């Protein structure tokens, strides 16, 4: 006989983000959830190989992939600017100003959903989006594939990377995605401190980390969660939704649920010090401004994420929290540009 009430799963009372879960000592096991997996996730049909990464790198930096032959992926995702562009919002085809800031592609390989509004599920899905977009790289994909096929060196590279798959929009996407999976930050002072290097963080940076994870203080971890400082979620954090007469409701355009009006994807904070300005609208120029936004900048906004709540930080605490955010950047490494076929 079936019972009237059947409890499928017992209630587990442990708390996901309790401050008590942490011991703030370098190398302590309670910090291990912040260590990014060494192996970067990839789909089974696009296992990374050197040939795929090399091809993807050439494509990523090749301006001939745009309609006017003057924009590459790296024009907006510039490695010298934190794989973003340093602009408030991006500039696209013929320098027209676009509606959103260029998101960094640092560690996006670890993310389960792509773009500010999550309209692309994977790096493979995403790769040709900007390339074909009329307002971005403005490229006709059929013409591009034809051009790549007629370029002997590119054709060889595609055959080496994807034997038997040919030159196509699919292999083009897969190659670019393979290169993007090499753009990783996991060697920051914070990472080193988590691994056991006691001197990797200053007292102020450690104090900032405590504020970051404290739900009653910074309350940052609730969205910028471990290990990649993002919950891969969508939140309205109280920014202006209508700018210069144009409205941007973010995720709501993709899924029309009222709670998503004005919600944008939580960005990673790794290498954050390299990719100012901040937020999807580029409205904050410094990390200190970002922190202050969460103190009182959001007040009065409608349809806020319920994760946003009243917090109180002293000037000294704002300094500590900002110092911690700056400690999330890995040392810059020299980048060797590809020789274009």
């Amino acid at each position, binding site marked *: 006989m079936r019972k*009237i009430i059947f409890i*499928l799963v017992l209630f587990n009372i442990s708390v996901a983000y309790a401050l008590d879960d942490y011991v703030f000592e370098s190398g302590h096991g309670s910090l291990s959830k912040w260590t990014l997996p060494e192996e970067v996730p990839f789909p089974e049909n696009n296992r990374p190989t050197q040939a795929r990464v090399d091809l993807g790198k050439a494509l990523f930096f090749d301006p001939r992939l745009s309609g006017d032959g003057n924009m590459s992926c790296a024009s907006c995702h510039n490695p010298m600017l934190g794989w973003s562009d340093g602009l408030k919002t991006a500039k696209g085809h013929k320098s027209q100003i676009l509606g959103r800031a260029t998101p960094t592609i640092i560690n996006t390989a670890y993310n389960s959903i792509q773009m500010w509004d999550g309209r692309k599920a994977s790096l493979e899905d995403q790769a040709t989006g900007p390339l074909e977009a009329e307002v971005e790289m403005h490229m006709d994909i059929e013409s591009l594939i034809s051009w790549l096929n007629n370029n002997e060196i590119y054709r060889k590279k595609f055959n080496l990377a994807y034997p038997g798959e040919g030159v196509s929009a699919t292999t083009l996407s897969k190659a670019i995605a393979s290169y993007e999976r090499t753009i990783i930050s996991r060697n920051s002072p914070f990472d080193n401190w988590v691994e056991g290097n006691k001197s990797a963080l200053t007292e102020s940076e450690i104090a900032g980390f405590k504020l970051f994870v404290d739900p009653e203080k910074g309350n940052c971890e609730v969205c910028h*969660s471990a290990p990649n400082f993002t919950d891969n979620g*969508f939140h309205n954090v109280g920014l202006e939704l209508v700018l210069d007469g144009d409205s941007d409701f973010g995720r709501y355009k993709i899924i029309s649920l009222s*709670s998503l009006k004005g919600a944008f994807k939580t960005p990673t904070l790794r290498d954050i010090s390299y990719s100012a300005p901040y937020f999807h609208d580029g409205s904050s120029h410094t990390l200190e401004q970002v922190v202050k936004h969460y103190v009182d900048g959001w007040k009065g906004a409608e349809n806020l994420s319920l994760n946003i709540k009243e917090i109180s930080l002293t000037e000294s605490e704002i300094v500590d929290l900002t110092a911690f955010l700056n400690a999330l950047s890995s040392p810059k490494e020299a980048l060797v540009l590809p020789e274009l076929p």
Partner: protein
Amino acid sequence: MKMKIIIMCFLMTNLAYAQNFVVNQKGLAFSEDNLTIQVGDIVSFVNQDEAFHNVYSLSDAAFFDLGSYGKGKEKEVEFDEVGEVVVECAVHPSMQMTISVIE
């Protein structure tokens, strides 16, 4: 009088066969990937995370939006139609599960 008894029996029969299931939301995941229930069963979605969740479905067999709610809160849905119901969290799209509603 006879009619009252019939109605009471009918209600008691339904009570005896309707089941309540609990699905937790914890660590940005549903506690179940798949769940099979019968028409008329009720599923409660319990949020055990610090983060707010927003359970919804746009499936033909069940179209609902429970809105955002926080830790310790729960909301329930009665499933009245046979079919596959994909349940997601609007805030965290990686949180997905399927409820199979059978006769």
